């Protein structure tokens, strides 16, 4: 085809210039792709951290206020005497003693203190169905977040605390809550029939550390739960160690208070992303005194290097990419105009022998588009290379995700209870999840499409400027210059 032959020959004639233009476009586009990939990777990491906190599909999370201190002498549901606040002291013989608030002290040797504590105050379970009926809400489910703290004192009085977190989940609503983002690695998850069963699903990390497998038994609050499944949450999150049916969690004896007929967390799915803000407001009106968080509000509280990198990619990275792209466009335009100026006689002759202006313009635009396409291919390649380099050399990022105020959200493995000052943590203490976040830049198809469009647009812009000059060219003037 004559068009292609002419185009090919012309680009070959000014090969250096064509390569220069294509390279410039490739650099600009490559930077855009790399920054976009890095941003996407950071967003994905952030999203992974946040979604694991309350599950994929959950748009709004409602948590109760911080639980108050237990009343001394009060009894829990199963009749156990509530120990109230207590502390440790050194006895007259140098042994460790446990003292209750009423002053009674006994030797701690050989004793095991097991405390099941709620992270938040209870919210009446009826509020869950009320939240589900709010306009803009597709579903709501309740959950309970507990921490089981165990402190074992040896005969010498030394203590070895341990804890694990327990989440009560609504087995009838598998798409809401922290279990919804987990991937099953063995066994099976809860079904609706498990609502009142003593079964549990454990996190793969916890199962490995405690040497648990499907079929193993696990005791919580003196109740033996059979493990039916093992799940794995998104990488670098701090998921609960154990999941049990909500009704079983509600029946557990807490160190302070009871959660019968109550939940500590409500997970809400909105009908649309644009309606989340409105739904949040409605829920806050329905449940005053609770903390209502969305993924967006939680994302704003994420600190650590992951948010720094996100900001860096979003601000500096984006502007740098835009500047380089503008420079590449400018160079492409300049060089194309110079090339057109050199070919004035050629175009004047073609016009003289009967070529229409639009045919000549199409030829120039074709040459420019070809350089743009070459730039796009180079840019995508550079973008992939840039993303690979970032993936290879970028350090592990950290994300600190604060829990909503008043909560007892404790990181797995963190012991609460006896120690400094004794007793459960009081309200006002800010807990947080510190998670390591690997950065995996991802080049998506939409970014590739953007890169191609940008590069071809850059080439066509340059061609358009040259074409404007051709359109204004009078053959007589062009030919007189040759003469």
């Amino acid at each position: 085809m004559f068009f292609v032959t002419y185009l090919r020959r012309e680009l070959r004639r000014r090969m250096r210039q064509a390569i220069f233009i294509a390279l410039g476009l490739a650099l600009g586009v490559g930077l855009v792709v790399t920054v976009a990939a890095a941003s996407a990777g950071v967003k994905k990491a952030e999203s992974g951290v946040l979604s694991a906190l309350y599950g994929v599909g959950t748009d709004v999370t409602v948590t109760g206020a911080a639980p108050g201190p237990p009343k001394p002498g009060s009894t829990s549901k199963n009749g156990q005497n509530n120990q109230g606040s207590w502390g440790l002291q050194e006895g007259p013989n140098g042994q460790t003693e446990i003292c209750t608030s009423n002053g009674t002290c006994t030797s701690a040797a050989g004793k095991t203190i097991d405390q099941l504590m709620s992270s938040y105050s209870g919210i009446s379970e009826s509020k869950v169905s009320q939240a589900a009926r709010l306009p803009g809400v597709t579903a709501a489910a309740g959950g309970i977040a507990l921490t089981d703290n165990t402190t074992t004192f040896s005969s010498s009085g030394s203590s070895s605390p341990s804890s694990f977190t327990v989440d009560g989940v609504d087995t009838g609503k598998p798409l809401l809550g922290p279990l919804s983002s987990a991937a099953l690695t063995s066994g099976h998850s809860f079904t609706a029939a498990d609502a009142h069963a003593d079964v549990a699903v454990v996190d793969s990390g916890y199962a490995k550390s405690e040497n648990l497998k499907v079929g193993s038994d696990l005791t919580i609050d003196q109740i033996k739960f059979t493990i039916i499944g093992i799940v794995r949450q998104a990488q670098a999150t701090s998921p609960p160690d154990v999941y049990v049916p909500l009704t079983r969690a509600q029946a557990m004896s807490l160190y302070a208070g009871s959660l019968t007929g109550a939940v500590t967390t409500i997970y809400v799915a909105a009908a649309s992303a644009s309606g989340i803000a409105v739904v949040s407001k409605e829920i806050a009106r329905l449940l005053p005194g609770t903390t209502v968080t969305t993924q967006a509000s939680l994302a704003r509280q994420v600190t650590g290097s992951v948010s720094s990198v996100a900001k860096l990619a979003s601000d500096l990275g984006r502007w740098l990419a835009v500047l380089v792209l503008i420079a590449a466009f400018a160079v492409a335009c300049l060089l194309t105009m110079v090339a057109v100026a050199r070919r004035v006689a050629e175009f004047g002759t073609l016009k003289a022998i009967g070529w229409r202006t639009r045919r000549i313009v199409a030829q120039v635009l074709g040459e420019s588009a070809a350089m743009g396409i070459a730039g796009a291919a180079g840019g995508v390649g550079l973008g992939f290379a840039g993303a690979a380099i970032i993936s290879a050399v970028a350090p592990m990022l950290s994300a600190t995700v604060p829990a909503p105020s008043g909560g007892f959200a404790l990181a797995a493995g963190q012991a609460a209870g006896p120690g400094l000052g004794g007793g459960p943590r009081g309200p006002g203490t800010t807990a947080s999840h510190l998670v390591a976040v690997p950065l995996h830049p991802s080049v998506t198809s939409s970014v590739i499409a953007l890169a191609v469009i940008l590069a071809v647009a850059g080439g066509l812009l340059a061609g358009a400027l040259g074409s404007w000059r051709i359109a204004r060219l009078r053959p007589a003037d062009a030919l007189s210059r040759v003469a």
Partner: protein
Amino acid sequence: MYKLTGVTKLYHKGRRTVPAVRDLDLTISDGEWLAVQGRTGHGKSTLLNLLGGLDQPTEGTIELDGTGLGALREPRLTRLRAESIGFIFQTFNLVPTLSAAENVETALIPLGTGHSGRRRRVAAALDQVGLADRAGHLPAELSGGQQQRVAIARALVKEPKVLLADEPTGNLDTDTRDDIIGLLEQLWRERGLTLVLVTHDSAVARPAQRVAVMMNGRVTIHQATGSTSASGSPWDLHPGNARAPDPLTRSRTDRAGRRA
């Protein structure tokens, strides 16, 4: 047939106005060979541009076969040039990246001729100018004379009615000049073209039927006598001269003779 009536072309250079063509009345018949002579800067190329529709007169009208060129918009003018007018330039003006055959083919692209038709006509055109074996050569690989032959093939491949040649031998040596003029004459006779040829060289103008001498934008027409002198030139009004005098020179001597 060309009919020029009161044609004037003015160029404005700052505050100066330069008349390239002044009040020209001229008729060029179908199949006529008109040579346009004159010194540099006296309006020869301007006249050619006006005849080719590459430029518009400041005043007056130019008609080609009854159609006023000034009334045509640019797309129509371009179409007219594509179909009916062939151009030959002093500097050949070949596209440097295209081969001889592809350069000839550029004249057929605007006509929408199919690929096989173009190939056939290009081959025939190159054969007619004696360059069939150079079809694949780039202009840089051809001599000046060969490049001009390619340009002639390009001008004639579309079988135009009019051929406008602007100093076609200006960049060629004497022998090549004669070859090219001989080729043009042959093609002119075979095809019955209307040929308007701009030149400053009397030897090139010799085969023409009329010579339009331009001086300061004004034209003096010299008609061929219908008979030839001893030297074989229709312009030779001075018997015994070996060469046909430059009509410009003839004008001066003629005036000198009368003065004497």
